[in-house]
């Protein structure tokens, strides 16, 4: 994160101007790349980002070693935004129905934020077979959020039941599943929320 510096010395001012231009251009490139991710659902090429952003390929390579470095930057930006919309209230005192509703809505709106990079990343993941570290951290966080929100339902279960409820319930509100509902099954956000809610309620309700 660049610190704002004092525009005191002449030399400093010159440097600042360059730094500002650089930051602006980096920002332009990242935004253009993100747009392309969302439109094409795959990792764009440096050339495509150059055309979209209006920056020359030469400057692109000055700012980023390769497309991997640029897409990592996009992924970081998307993750920051995702984190900002990912919080749920303390589950204590909230009814199961309300907690189910809240997590289902949250995960569907989260999908809208991460869609482009998620899909491009998934495609790359499928092809390379290598999990992205950032994605793994987010998935672990989502699993913790699920277990935390439904701790009072999960706690009384025996080990096998609990595992089943956590794994299947968590799976139902992963990005992969929202993706299936919205892209493959062509549901609206509300329909996707309803489907997830129904499944979660059943899985979390004691028989």
């Amino acid at each position, binding site marked *: 994160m660049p610190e704002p510096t004092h525009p005191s010395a002449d030399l400093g001012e010159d440097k600042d101007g360059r730094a500002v231009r650089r930051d602006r251009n980096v920002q332009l490139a990242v935004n253009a790349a993100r747009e392309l991710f969302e439109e*094409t*659902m*795959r990792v764009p090429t440096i050339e495509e980002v150059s055309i979209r952003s209006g920056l020359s390929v030469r400057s692109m390579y000055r700012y980023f070693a390769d497309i991997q470095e640029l897409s990592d930057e996009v992924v970081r930006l998307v993750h920051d935004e995702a984190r900002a919309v990912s919080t749920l209230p303390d589950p204590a005192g909230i009814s199961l129905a309300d907690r189910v509703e809240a997590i289902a809505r949250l995960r569907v709106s989260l999908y809208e934020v991460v869609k482009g990079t998620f899909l491009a990343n998934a*495609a790359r993941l*499928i*092809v390379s*077979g290598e*999990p992205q570290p950032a994605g793994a951290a987010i*998935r672990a966080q989502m699993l913790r959020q699920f277990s935390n929100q439904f701790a009072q339902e999960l706690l009384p279960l025996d080990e*096998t*039941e609990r*595992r*089943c*409820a956590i*794994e*299947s*319930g968590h*799976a*139902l509100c*992963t990005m*992969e*599943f929202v993706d*299936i*509902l919205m892209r*493959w*099954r062509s*549901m609206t956000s509300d329909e996707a929320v*309803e*489907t997830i809610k*129904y*499944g979660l309620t*059943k*899985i979390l*309700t004691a*028989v």
Partner: protein
Amino acid sequence: MSSPSQSSRSDGRTERRDDNILLALRTAQCLFDEGMLVPSIEDVANRSGLSPRSLYRYFEDRQTMVRQAIDLVTQEAYKLGAIENTGVGPLATRIDEIVTARVRVYKTVAGSLRATAALYPTENELVGAANRSLHLKMLQCSRQFEPELSCLDEREHVAVSEACNMLLMMESIHVLHHRRGLSFDTIADVLSGALTKILTPES
């Protein structure tokens, strides 16, 4: 008019040709499973012992070869995924049948699923390739749970069948296996448990 000896010779050629094509496609499938998703004609030649020359006679290019290998797995997956007497028997048995079938299919197609994604980089092609199998899977799922589904009102019917269908998709097994690192036995338990809860009517 061809003499009998000529025709038998040409049959022998056809047979050898078919055997070789099958061998090449199987080899390509092994390579998918090992992580080589779009093998070249030379890769398959090296592994199978067939000459690149004959492979180029059988397949126009690597794309065609990979596509045919994927098609072959897909056809086999249909057979592996089949359930006898769909929708008949107690719920627990039917859940067990469909879960076992889907895990079995996943084991066979996992490599070629990845190859499919590698081969069809654009959204539309990928959706086209997967749509048929998605449809058949949904159909099987609604038939298998017809006794439970038919008791539900329309809104519940949609929710239950979508939830079951989702849990039984290859993507779901992929998430549980690849991302969550669960064994196939545990995956079967997790899926059966969840389906039982989703399909058991509220008392």
